[in-house]
């Protein structure tokens, strides 16, 4: 794996067009990036080049190139099994947990290749948090669900500091008013939507740079979904958000950029407005207009 990564990095200079100032592109199909973003000046958060991933002999990601920008919501859409969740999990190396997975290519953050064996995946995940499809609060109190990670990370030293952090995280997640009187109750006692916001609060409490969301609303009712969508919009002031969604309307509502995956390939990466009004590729257009999915 090490060799292959080295190779792919050596290849980089040969692709000057994939430089750090790369804007959302529509790779692979036309071979050259297309600048579609009017709103320049965003700073790069994560840069992905020639990412390939195999589960055993089965290739799940094929030559993915993408740039993720800070303080934006980037949505990954595509039919199920297209690799969008797999891709998301490459960004904080959650795929490490799966045996028999093989990754090639570059995922760069803060000037560092995250797949570099010298990169500590714990440090990476500290900066790239994640919220899952099904709310998974720990079997602890609401308070402890949030306080646990910052305490382990030595982000707080005093009890008062910890209380403050918990309150802030819950406020940021829009949950404070609902739970402030029952912080000692188990996290599992909350409703599904509240649990998911608790998980978001938990993720932001460690102050990451990036928050990955893997279909965060697919298990929720429409009202909770709307709450979380509003929350995403607010949170992008502080964090970079990458979200996977199976719901195109959601992508259209919350995302600044949208990436369309199909069969492990990134077909189109575009400004969300462009993606939904005037997609560059036939496949994306077919998907968006509901020909398949």
């Amino acid at each position: 794996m090490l060799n292959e990564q080295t190779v792919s990095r050596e290849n980089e200079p040969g692709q000057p067009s994939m430089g750090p100032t790369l804007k959302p592109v529509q790779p692979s199909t036309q071979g050259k990036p297309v600048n579609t973003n009017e709103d320049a000046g965003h700073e790069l958060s994560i840069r992905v080049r020639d990412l390939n991933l195999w589960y055993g002999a089965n290739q799940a990601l094929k030559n993915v190139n993408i740039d993720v920008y800070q303080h934006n919501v980037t949505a990954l859409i595509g039919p199920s099994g297209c690799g969008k969740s797999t891709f998301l999990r490459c960004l904080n190396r959650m795929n490490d947990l799966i045996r028999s997975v093989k990754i090639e290519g570059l995922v760069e953050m803060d000037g560092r290749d995250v797949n570099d064996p010298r990169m500590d995946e714990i440090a990476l995940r500290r900066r790239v948090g994640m919220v899952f499809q099904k709310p998974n609060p720990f079997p602890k109190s609401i308070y402890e669900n949030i306080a646990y990670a910052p305490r382990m990370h030595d982000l707080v030293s005093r009890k008062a500091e910890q209380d403050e952090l918990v309150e802030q995280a819950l406020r940021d997640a829009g949950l404070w008013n609902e739970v402030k009187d029952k912080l000692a109750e188990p996290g599992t006692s909350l409703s599904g939507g509240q649990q998911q916001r608790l998980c978001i609060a938990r993720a932001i409490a460690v102050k990451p740079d990036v928050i990955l969301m893997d279909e965060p609303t697919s298990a929720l009712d429409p009202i909770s979904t709307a709450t979380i969508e509003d929350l995403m919009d607010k949170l992008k002031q502080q964090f970079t958000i990458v979200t996977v969604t199976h719901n195109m309307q959601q992508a259209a509502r919350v995302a600044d950029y949208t990436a369309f995956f199909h069969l492990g390939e990134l077909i189109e990466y575009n400004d969300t407005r462009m993606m939904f009004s005037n997609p560059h590729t036939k496949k994306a257009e077919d998907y968006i207009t509901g020909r398949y999915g």
Partner: protein
Amino acid sequence: MSQSFDEITAQLKRRHRKTARLKWLSMGALALAATFLVVFISDMLVKGLPAFQQAQIQVEVTYSEQSQQMPPAAVNEDVRRLVSRGFLRTLPMRMRDNPDLMGTTRMEWVLADSAVDQYLKGHHTRLKDDQKSIVDDLLAKGQVELKFNTRFFTAGDSKMPELAGIASAAMGTVMTLIVTMLVCFPIGVMTAVYLEEFATDNWLTQVIEININNLAAVPSILFGLLGLAIYINFFGVPRSTPLVGGLTLALMTLPVIIIATRTALRSVPDTIRQAAFGVGCSRWQVVRDHVLPLSFPGILTGSIIGLAQAMGETAPLIIIGMVAFIPDVSASFSDAATVMPAQIFTWAGEPDRAFTEKTAGGILVLLVVLISLNATAVWMRKKFERRW
């Protein structure tokens, strides 16, 4: 705003060490458990393997009228104490059975006394120094040697260690387990079929289920109390017999078989049942023709494990008197008998060092049988395992 990777990584060192510590500690626990097993098995091998060899001594046996009357006279006085008394005791009988022997004198390999045996194996013995030097002499001449101990597998119990064997206990175990399986296999399978395929979910079914779970956790010795109070005192089943032992173990094994059978039945997918119902089978026909055949390997595997468990059980059998001294292989289910674990228990209580060896030898035999049974079960589970 947030820390860089390097800053975070530096802080992580201590926390990673904790993971490493937990990993090694937990691995150590597993290794410790494995070490216990290794220590235990090697201890049994060291103690038990010598039991498969027994000292034999080559002496001149005189078959005469005198030795018929007084068997010790048959061998020379200086080696008389070195020959097993068991051999001398059976001498008159042998002479009666083979009249040709009368009046002859022949060199024969005969069973040595247990003290000689222990001396050869390097243990402390009650042999006196002059006797020891005789043995050393004979050893140099090749007239004493350790030979494979066939008696251990063909003879019953004896008070003389050199004569004692496991045959009667092995036979007792076989007969007891026949009774056990004859009773608990059909009842266990029928109960499981009833609970999985026929019973509706009412209070009675729940009571039966809870009860089976509890029965599986009842200490085995209490089954002995049941056997004593109900089978022996109430129904008058004869004490110490394979019959009462088998019946007692059957009740103990019942939950094992029921639980294994239920698991096996549950692993047959409902689609099969629905398909069979769909072609007009009755419930019993579905069970008999489709569910049971498909779950049979699982049922058999569970039964083997139950059988192995019953084979190693001792406590309830002691209570119902199956620790009897059984020198001869018993022939009937209603004769007093002993079983392997009980024989081990009896020998373990004998003060004579030679019996320690026999005990460990018996344990080795029992373990080989048990491990092969369990290995068969594991093998069957692998072979017939089916993913639906």
